[in-house]
Protein backbone atom coordinates (compact mmCIF):
# COMPACT_ATOMS: atom_id res chain seq x y z
CA UNK A 1 0.00 0.00 0.00
CA UNK A 2 1.33 3.41 -0.97
CA UNK A 3 1.82 5.30 2.26
CA UNK A 4 -0.25 8.44 2.38
CA UNK A 5 -0.02 9.14 6.11
CA UNK A 6 -3.25 10.12 7.83
CA UNK A 7 -2.24 9.75 11.46
CA UNK A 8 1.37 10.36 12.43
CA UNK A 9 2.90 10.14 15.90
CA UNK A 10 6.53 11.15 16.37
CA UNK A 11 8.49 10.76 19.58
CA UNK A 12 5.38 10.82 21.71
CA UNK A 13 5.89 10.62 25.48
CA UNK A 14 3.15 10.59 28.08
CA UNK A 15 3.35 10.46 31.86
CA UNK A 16 0.75 9.94 34.57
CA UNK A 17 2.66 11.61 37.38
CA UNK A 18 5.75 9.43 37.78
CA UNK A 19 4.45 6.70 35.53
CA UNK A 20 5.91 6.82 32.02
CA UNK A 21 3.00 5.35 30.04
CA UNK A 22 4.03 6.08 26.45
CA UNK A 23 7.74 5.98 25.58
CA UNK A 24 8.99 7.50 22.34
CA UNK A 25 6.09 6.28 20.27
CA UNK A 26 6.50 6.59 16.50
CA UNK A 27 3.55 5.38 14.54
CA UNK A 28 2.23 6.16 11.09
CA UNK A 29 -1.18 5.06 9.93
CA UNK A 30 -1.78 5.44 6.21
CA UNK A 31 -5.07 6.48 4.67
CA UNK A 32 -7.30 3.44 4.42
CA UNK A 33 -5.01 1.35 6.59
CA UNK A 34 -6.23 -0.84 9.43
CA UNK A 35 -3.80 -1.12 12.32
CA UNK A 36 -4.46 -3.50 15.17
CA UNK A 37 -2.78 -2.73 18.50
CA UNK A 38 -2.27 -5.59 20.91
CA UNK A 39 -0.32 -6.04 24.11
CA UNK A 40 -0.61 -6.93 27.76
CA UNK A 41 -2.95 -5.04 30.05
CA UNK A 42 -1.41 -1.79 31.26
CA UNK A 43 0.97 -1.51 28.31
CA UNK A 44 -0.55 1.82 27.24
CA UNK A 45 -2.87 0.81 24.40
CA UNK A 46 -5.85 2.80 25.62
CA UNK A 47 -3.67 5.78 26.38
CA UNK A 48 -2.29 5.64 22.84
CA UNK A 49 -5.81 5.73 21.41
CA UNK A 50 -6.85 8.55 23.68
CA UNK A 51 -3.87 10.73 22.82
CA UNK A 52 -4.73 10.50 19.12
CA UNK A 53 -7.89 12.56 19.64
CA UNK A 54 -6.39 14.35 22.60
CA UNK A 55 -8.64 13.03 25.33
CA UNK A 56 -5.21 12.80 27.00
CA UNK A 57 -2.49 15.40 26.64
CA UNK A 58 1.10 14.42 25.87
CA UNK A 59 4.31 15.68 27.42
CA UNK A 60 6.48 15.62 24.31
CA UNK A 61 6.40 14.64 20.66
CA UNK A 62 4.01 15.53 17.87
CA UNK A 63 0.77 14.07 16.62
CA UNK A 64 -0.55 15.12 13.23
CA UNK A 65 -3.79 14.25 11.57
CA UNK A 66 -3.95 14.60 7.81
CA UNK A 67 -0.84 16.79 7.99
CA UNK A 68 -2.22 19.10 10.69
CA UNK A 69 -0.81 19.10 14.21
CA UNK A 70 -3.41 18.55 16.95
CA UNK A 71 -4.61 21.92 18.29
CA UNK A 72 -4.15 22.39 22.02
CA UNK A 73 -7.61 23.48 23.07
CA UNK A 74 -10.90 25.10 22.28
CA UNK A 75 -12.93 25.11 19.08
CA UNK A 76 -10.09 24.00 16.81
CA UNK A 77 -9.53 20.91 18.95
CA UNK A 78 -13.25 20.15 18.99
CA UNK A 79 -13.34 20.41 15.19
CA UNK A 80 -10.46 18.01 14.92
CA UNK A 81 -12.03 15.52 17.28
CA UNK A 82 -15.06 15.38 15.04
CA UNK A 83 -12.73 14.08 12.31
CA UNK A 84 -11.68 11.10 14.41
CA UNK A 85 -14.39 8.74 15.60
CA UNK A 86 -13.85 6.89 18.84
CA UNK A 87 -15.47 3.70 20.06
CA UNK A 88 -15.04 2.79 23.72
CA UNK A 89 -14.92 -0.50 25.54
CA UNK A 90 -17.88 0.56 27.68
CA UNK A 91 -19.94 1.95 24.73
CA UNK A 92 -20.68 5.26 26.49
CA UNK A 93 -23.98 5.85 24.73
CA UNK A 94 -25.77 8.89 26.13
CA UNK A 95 -28.02 7.26 28.71
CA UNK A 96 -30.74 9.94 28.62
CA UNK A 97 -31.16 9.91 24.84
CA UNK A 98 -32.78 7.43 22.49
CA UNK A 99 -30.73 5.48 19.97
CA UNK A 100 -31.72 7.90 17.21
CA UNK A 101 -30.93 10.95 19.38
CA UNK A 102 -27.56 9.45 20.26
CA UNK A 103 -26.62 9.27 16.59
CA UNK A 104 -28.12 12.66 15.69
CA UNK A 105 -26.93 14.79 18.62
CA UNK A 106 -23.44 15.68 17.45
CA UNK A 107 -24.55 16.13 13.83
CA UNK A 108 -26.85 18.90 15.04
CA UNK A 109 -24.50 20.38 17.67
CA UNK A 110 -21.19 20.06 15.86
CA UNK A 111 -21.96 19.82 12.15
CA UNK A 112 -24.93 22.18 12.53
CA UNK A 113 -27.12 19.88 10.43
CA UNK A 114 -30.86 20.45 10.48
CA UNK A 115 -32.59 17.99 12.78
CA UNK A 116 -34.50 16.31 9.94
CA UNK A 117 -31.36 15.87 7.85
CA UNK A 118 -29.47 14.54 10.85
CA UNK A 119 -32.22 12.05 11.66
CA UNK A 120 -32.34 10.86 8.06
CA UNK A 121 -28.58 10.33 8.06
CA UNK A 122 -28.84 8.58 11.44
CA UNK A 123 -31.50 6.20 10.15
CA UNK A 124 -29.27 5.25 7.20
CA UNK A 125 -26.42 4.49 9.57
CA UNK A 126 -28.65 2.54 11.95
CA UNK A 127 -29.86 0.55 8.96
CA UNK A 128 -26.25 -0.17 8.09
CA UNK A 129 -25.51 -1.58 11.55
CA UNK A 130 -28.82 -3.46 11.57
CA UNK A 131 -30.53 -1.50 14.33
CA UNK A 132 -33.07 0.71 12.61
CA UNK A 133 -35.88 -1.13 14.37
CA UNK A 134 -34.45 -0.01 17.73
CA UNK A 135 -34.18 3.71 16.91
CA UNK A 136 -36.72 4.79 19.53
CA UNK A 137 -35.28 2.75 22.40
CA UNK A 138 -33.00 3.94 25.19
CA UNK A 139 -29.50 2.43 25.46
CA UNK A 140 -30.37 0.54 28.65
CA UNK A 141 -32.98 -1.43 26.66
CA UNK A 142 -30.34 -2.82 24.26
CA UNK A 143 -27.86 -5.67 24.60
CA UNK A 144 -24.16 -4.85 24.81
CA UNK A 145 -23.55 -5.85 21.21
CA UNK A 146 -26.41 -3.64 20.04
CA UNK A 147 -25.17 -0.71 22.10
CA UNK A 148 -21.71 -1.02 20.63
CA UNK A 149 -23.13 -1.05 17.10
CA UNK A 150 -25.06 2.14 17.91
CA UNK A 151 -21.83 3.64 19.25
CA UNK A 152 -20.15 2.85 15.93
CA UNK A 153 -23.02 4.42 14.01
CA UNK A 154 -22.80 7.49 16.26
CA UNK A 155 -19.10 7.90 15.50
CA UNK A 156 -19.67 7.34 11.77
CA UNK A 157 -22.34 10.04 11.76
CA UNK A 158 -19.60 12.67 11.84
CA UNK A 159 -18.12 11.27 8.60
CA UNK A 160 -14.75 10.85 10.33
CA UNK A 161 -11.49 10.47 8.47
CA UNK A 162 -10.40 7.77 10.86
CA UNK A 163 -11.88 5.60 13.60
CA UNK A 164 -10.28 4.54 16.86
CA UNK A 165 -11.55 1.43 18.64
CA UNK A 166 -10.46 0.74 22.21
CA UNK A 167 -11.21 -2.91 22.96
CA UNK A 168 -14.69 -2.64 21.41
CA UNK A 169 -15.61 -6.24 22.16
CA UNK A 170 -13.96 -6.81 25.55
CA UNK A 171 -17.06 -5.95 27.55
CA UNK A 172 -19.33 -8.18 25.47
CA UNK A 173 -20.69 -11.66 26.02
CA UNK A 174 -19.07 -14.06 23.55
CA UNK A 175 -22.18 -14.52 21.42
CA UNK A 176 -22.33 -10.77 20.74
CA UNK A 177 -18.73 -10.27 19.73
CA UNK A 178 -19.24 -11.34 16.17
CA UNK A 179 -22.05 -8.92 15.35
CA UNK A 180 -19.74 -6.05 16.31
CA UNK A 181 -16.72 -7.48 14.50
CA UNK A 182 -18.83 -7.93 11.39
CA UNK A 183 -19.65 -4.21 11.36
CA UNK A 184 -15.95 -3.44 11.80
CA UNK A 185 -14.91 -5.84 9.04
CA UNK A 186 -17.37 -4.14 6.71
CA UNK A 187 -15.93 -0.73 7.63
CA UNK A 188 -12.44 -2.00 6.88
CA UNK A 189 -13.60 -3.31 3.50
CA UNK A 190 -15.12 0.10 2.76
CA UNK A 191 -11.67 1.62 3.18
CA UNK A 192 -12.03 3.34 6.58
CA UNK A 193 -8.76 4.17 8.30
CA UNK A 194 -8.85 2.32 11.60
CA UNK A 195 -6.76 1.91 14.73
CA UNK A 196 -8.15 -1.02 16.68
CA UNK A 197 -7.04 -2.14 20.11
CA UNK A 198 -8.23 -5.73 20.29
CA UNK A 199 -7.17 -9.25 21.10
CA UNK A 200 -9.46 -10.70 18.47
CA UNK A 201 -6.87 -12.39 16.31
CA UNK A 202 -9.41 -13.48 13.75
CA UNK A 203 -10.19 -9.84 13.08
CA UNK A 204 -6.50 -8.91 12.98
CA UNK A 205 -5.72 -11.68 10.51
CA UNK A 206 -8.68 -10.99 8.24
CA UNK A 207 -8.83 -7.21 8.25
CA UNK A 208 -5.61 -5.64 9.54
CA UNK A 209 -2.78 -4.40 7.36
CA UNK A 210 -0.44 -4.27 10.34
CA UNK A 211 -0.24 -5.43 13.91
CA UNK A 212 1.46 -3.22 16.47
CA UNK A 213 2.56 -4.99 19.61
CA UNK A 214 3.00 -2.81 22.71
CA UNK A 215 4.63 -3.59 26.02
CA UNK A 216 5.52 -1.22 28.86
CA UNK A 217 4.60 1.86 26.87
CA UNK A 218 6.76 1.00 23.87
CA UNK A 219 5.99 -0.29 20.42
CA UNK A 220 7.92 -3.56 20.35
CA UNK A 221 6.83 -4.94 17.00
CA UNK A 222 5.04 -3.41 14.01
CA UNK A 223 4.45 -5.99 11.30
CA UNK A 224 2.07 -7.76 8.96
CA UNK A 225 -0.46 -9.81 10.95
CA UNK A 226 0.39 -13.26 9.59
CA UNK A 227 4.11 -12.67 10.18
CA UNK A 228 3.54 -11.45 13.67
CA UNK A 229 1.27 -14.26 14.78
CA UNK A 230 3.32 -17.04 13.29
CA UNK A 231 6.81 -15.67 13.89
CA UNK A 232 6.87 -13.16 16.72
CA UNK A 233 10.41 -11.82 17.10
CA UNK A 234 10.53 -10.47 20.64
CA UNK A 235 10.37 -12.55 23.81
CA UNK A 236 7.59 -10.31 25.11
CA UNK A 237 5.44 -11.01 22.08
CA UNK A 238 6.14 -14.76 22.17
CA UNK A 239 5.24 -14.86 25.82
CA UNK A 240 2.10 -12.79 25.29
CA UNK A 241 0.89 -14.82 22.30
CA UNK A 242 1.44 -18.11 24.09
CA UNK A 243 -0.80 -16.83 26.90
CA UNK A 244 -3.67 -15.63 24.75
CA UNK A 245 -3.48 -18.60 22.38
CA UNK A 246 -4.13 -21.00 25.22
CA UNK A 247 -7.64 -19.63 25.63
Amino acid sequence: MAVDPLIELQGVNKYYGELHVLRDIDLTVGRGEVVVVIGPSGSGKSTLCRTINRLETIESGTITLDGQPLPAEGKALARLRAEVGMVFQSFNLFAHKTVLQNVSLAQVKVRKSKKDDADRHSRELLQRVGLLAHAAKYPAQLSGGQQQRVAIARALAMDPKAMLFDEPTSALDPEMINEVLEVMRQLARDGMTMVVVTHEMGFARASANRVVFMADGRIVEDRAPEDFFTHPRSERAKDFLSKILKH
Partner: protein
Amino acid sequence: MNVLTDNFSTYWEGFLGTVELTVYGSVLALALGFLMASFRVAPVGSLRVFGTVWVTVLRNTPLTLLFFAVLLGLPRFGLVLPFTVFAVLALGCYTSAFICEALRSGINTVPKGQGEAARSLGMTFGQTLSAVVLPQAFRSVIPPVGSTLIALAKNSAIAGAFSVTELLGTYKTMSELGYNIVWTFVWIALGYLVITLAISALFHVLERTWGVAR
Protein backbone atom coordinates in the same frame (compact mmCIF):
# COMPACT_ATOMS: atom_id res chain seq x y z
CA MET B 1 -55.79 34.35 68.66
CA ASN B 2 -57.07 37.53 67.02
CA VAL B 3 -53.47 38.70 66.61
CA LEU B 4 -53.69 37.55 63.01
CA THR B 5 -57.02 39.12 62.09
CA ASP B 6 -56.21 42.42 63.80
CA ASN B 7 -52.82 42.76 62.12
CA PHE B 8 -53.48 41.00 58.89
CA SER B 9 -52.05 43.72 56.66
CA THR B 10 -48.78 43.87 58.63
CA TYR B 11 -48.55 40.10 58.62
CA TRP B 12 -49.39 39.88 54.92
CA GLU B 13 -46.76 42.49 54.02
CA GLY B 14 -44.18 40.55 56.00
CA PHE B 15 -45.21 37.33 54.32
CA LEU B 16 -44.92 38.87 50.86
CA GLY B 17 -41.55 40.33 51.85
CA THR B 18 -40.25 36.89 52.71
CA VAL B 19 -41.69 35.42 49.51
CA GLU B 20 -40.02 38.18 47.54
CA LEU B 21 -36.64 37.63 49.20
CA THR B 22 -36.97 33.88 48.67
CA VAL B 23 -37.93 34.06 45.01
CA TYR B 24 -35.35 36.64 43.91
CA GLY B 25 -32.71 35.14 46.18
CA SER B 26 -33.37 31.69 44.68
CA VAL B 27 -33.19 32.93 41.11
CA LEU B 28 -29.87 34.65 41.81
CA ALA B 29 -28.53 31.64 43.74
CA LEU B 30 -29.49 29.21 40.96
CA ALA B 31 -27.98 31.38 38.22
CA LEU B 32 -24.74 32.04 40.10
CA GLY B 33 -24.55 28.47 41.41
CA PHE B 34 -24.92 27.13 37.87
CA LEU B 35 -22.23 29.49 36.61
CA MET B 36 -19.83 28.61 39.44
CA ALA B 37 -20.40 24.87 38.98
CA SER B 38 -19.49 25.23 35.28
CA PHE B 39 -16.39 27.17 36.32
CA ARG B 40 -15.38 24.47 38.76
CA VAL B 41 -15.43 21.73 36.11
CA ALA B 42 -14.12 23.93 33.27
CA PRO B 43 -10.94 23.00 31.40
CA VAL B 44 -9.57 26.51 32.11
CA GLY B 45 -7.49 26.69 35.30
CA SER B 46 -8.26 30.31 36.19
CA LEU B 47 -12.01 29.67 36.06
CA ARG B 48 -11.63 26.65 38.33
CA VAL B 49 -9.68 28.76 40.81
CA PHE B 50 -12.31 31.51 40.72
CA GLY B 51 -15.11 29.00 41.33
CA THR B 52 -13.25 27.36 44.19
CA VAL B 53 -12.50 30.68 45.90
CA TRP B 54 -16.11 31.81 45.48
CA VAL B 55 -17.46 28.67 47.11
CA THR B 56 -14.87 28.53 49.88
CA VAL B 57 -15.29 32.15 50.93
CA LEU B 58 -19.09 32.26 50.80
CA ARG B 59 -19.69 28.87 52.34
CA ASN B 60 -17.45 29.64 55.29
CA THR B 61 -18.70 33.16 56.06
CA PRO B 62 -21.55 33.48 58.58
CA LEU B 63 -24.56 34.84 56.73
CA THR B 64 -25.05 37.67 59.22
CA LEU B 65 -21.49 38.81 58.61
CA LEU B 66 -22.17 38.73 54.88
CA PHE B 67 -25.26 40.91 55.40
CA PHE B 68 -23.14 43.41 57.31
CA ALA B 69 -20.50 43.35 54.60
CA VAL B 70 -23.03 43.93 51.81
CA LEU B 71 -25.34 46.41 53.56
CA LEU B 72 -22.65 48.47 55.22
CA GLY B 73 -19.73 47.77 52.88
CA LEU B 74 -21.11 48.32 49.40
CA PRO B 75 -22.50 51.84 50.11
CA ARG B 76 -18.94 52.85 51.11
CA PHE B 77 -17.95 52.15 47.50
CA GLY B 78 -20.73 54.40 46.32
CA LEU B 79 -23.17 51.59 45.58
CA VAL B 80 -26.46 52.71 47.05
CA LEU B 81 -29.42 50.40 46.47
CA PRO B 82 -32.65 49.63 48.34
CA PHE B 83 -32.04 47.40 51.37
CA THR B 84 -34.15 44.66 49.85
CA VAL B 85 -31.82 44.48 46.85
CA PHE B 86 -28.80 44.25 49.14
CA ALA B 87 -30.51 41.48 51.09
CA VAL B 88 -31.23 39.56 47.87
CA LEU B 89 -27.59 39.96 46.86
CA ALA B 90 -26.34 38.66 50.20
CA LEU B 91 -28.78 35.73 50.29
CA GLY B 92 -28.29 34.86 46.61
CA CYS B 93 -24.49 34.92 46.71
CA TYR B 94 -24.35 32.97 49.96
CA THR B 95 -26.75 30.29 48.75
CA SER B 96 -25.09 30.06 45.32
CA ALA B 97 -22.08 28.43 47.00
CA PHE B 98 -24.30 25.60 48.26
CA ILE B 99 -26.15 25.28 44.95
CA CYS B 100 -22.79 25.09 43.17
CA GLU B 101 -21.65 22.22 45.35
CA ALA B 102 -24.95 20.36 44.95
CA LEU B 103 -24.67 20.70 41.16
CA ARG B 104 -21.04 19.66 41.20
CA SER B 105 -21.73 16.52 43.20
CA GLY B 106 -24.52 15.75 40.73
CA ILE B 107 -22.10 16.21 37.84
CA ASN B 108 -19.74 13.78 39.54
CA THR B 109 -22.42 11.09 39.60
CA VAL B 110 -22.47 11.07 35.78
CA PRO B 111 -19.96 8.50 34.50
CA LYS B 112 -16.82 10.05 32.97
CA GLY B 113 -17.34 8.14 29.75
CA GLN B 114 -20.44 10.22 28.96
CA GLY B 115 -18.44 13.43 28.74
CA GLU B 116 -15.59 11.71 26.93
CA ALA B 117 -17.93 10.32 24.29
CA ALA B 118 -19.38 13.80 23.75
CA ARG B 119 -15.96 15.39 23.47
CA SER B 120 -14.71 12.68 21.13
CA LEU B 121 -17.57 13.60 18.79
CA GLY B 122 -16.30 17.18 18.66
CA MET B 123 -18.72 18.75 21.10
CA THR B 124 -17.31 21.76 22.97
CA PHE B 125 -17.09 21.97 26.74
CA GLY B 126 -20.32 24.00 26.91
CA GLN B 127 -22.20 21.62 24.63
CA THR B 128 -20.96 18.59 26.54
CA LEU B 129 -22.06 20.11 29.82
CA SER B 130 -25.44 21.36 28.68
CA ALA B 131 -26.53 18.54 26.35
CA VAL B 132 -25.01 15.48 27.97
CA VAL B 133 -23.76 15.92 31.53
CA LEU B 134 -26.19 18.33 33.22
CA PRO B 135 -29.40 16.68 31.98
CA GLN B 136 -28.16 13.45 33.57
CA ALA B 137 -26.95 15.21 36.71
CA PHE B 138 -30.25 17.08 36.99
CA ARG B 139 -32.22 14.25 38.49
CA SER B 140 -29.85 13.59 41.35
CA VAL B 141 -29.49 17.29 42.21
CA ILE B 142 -33.22 18.03 42.58
CA PRO B 143 -33.48 16.98 46.27
CA PRO B 144 -30.34 18.77 47.54
CA VAL B 145 -31.18 21.94 45.58
CA GLY B 146 -34.67 21.85 47.12
CA SER B 147 -33.21 21.64 50.63
CA THR B 148 -30.82 24.48 49.88
CA LEU B 149 -33.66 26.74 48.73
CA ILE B 150 -35.69 25.88 51.85
CA ALA B 151 -32.68 26.95 53.90
CA LEU B 152 -32.60 30.18 51.88
CA ALA B 153 -36.26 30.89 52.72
CA LYS B 154 -35.52 30.55 56.42
CA ASN B 155 -32.23 32.45 56.22
CA SER B 156 -34.12 35.40 54.74
CA ALA B 157 -35.26 36.15 58.32
CA ILE B 158 -31.85 37.73 58.93
CA ALA B 159 -32.84 40.52 56.55
CA GLY B 160 -35.43 41.65 59.11
CA ALA B 161 -32.63 42.72 61.40
CA PHE B 162 -31.51 45.10 58.65
CA SER B 163 -34.92 46.80 58.38
CA VAL B 164 -36.09 44.88 55.35
CA THR B 165 -39.78 44.05 55.53
CA GLU B 166 -40.15 40.31 56.00
CA LEU B 167 -42.14 37.84 58.01
CA LEU B 168 -40.12 37.41 61.21
CA GLY B 169 -39.71 41.18 61.64
CA THR B 170 -43.49 41.58 62.01
CA TYR B 171 -43.31 40.19 65.58
CA LYS B 172 -41.84 43.51 66.75
CA THR B 173 -44.87 45.51 65.62
CA MET B 174 -47.26 43.01 67.09
CA SER B 175 -45.54 42.60 70.43
CA GLU B 176 -45.32 46.40 70.79
CA LEU B 177 -49.07 46.44 70.37
CA GLY B 178 -49.28 44.06 73.32
CA TYR B 179 -50.32 40.85 71.61
CA ASN B 180 -49.45 37.44 73.02
CA ILE B 181 -45.91 36.68 71.85
CA VAL B 182 -46.55 32.92 71.68
CA TRP B 183 -49.44 33.26 69.26
CA THR B 184 -47.52 35.81 67.24
CA PHE B 185 -44.71 33.33 66.76
CA VAL B 186 -47.08 30.47 65.98
CA TRP B 187 -48.56 32.47 63.10
CA ILE B 188 -45.14 33.51 61.88
CA ALA B 189 -43.94 29.89 62.00
CA LEU B 190 -46.99 28.87 59.99
CA GLY B 191 -46.13 31.51 57.41
CA TYR B 192 -42.66 30.02 56.96
CA LEU B 193 -44.16 26.57 56.81
CA VAL B 194 -46.40 27.60 53.92
CA ILE B 195 -43.39 28.87 51.99
CA THR B 196 -41.11 25.90 52.70
CA LEU B 197 -43.84 23.35 52.01
CA ALA B 198 -44.54 25.10 48.71
CA ILE B 199 -40.87 24.72 47.78
CA SER B 200 -40.93 21.06 48.84
CA ALA B 201 -44.01 20.41 46.74
CA LEU B 202 -42.47 22.11 43.72
CA PHE B 203 -39.34 19.96 43.95
CA HIS B 204 -41.41 16.87 44.51
CA VAL B 205 -43.17 17.50 41.23
CA LEU B 206 -39.86 18.20 39.48
CA GLU B 207 -38.42 14.97 40.79
CA ARG B 208 -41.41 12.99 39.62
CA THR B 209 -41.50 14.48 36.12
CA TRP B 210 -37.75 14.29 35.53
CA GLY B 211 -37.31 10.96 37.21
CA VAL B 212 -39.09 9.03 34.47
CA ALA B 213 -36.63 9.40 31.59
CA ARG B 214 -34.42 6.28 31.43
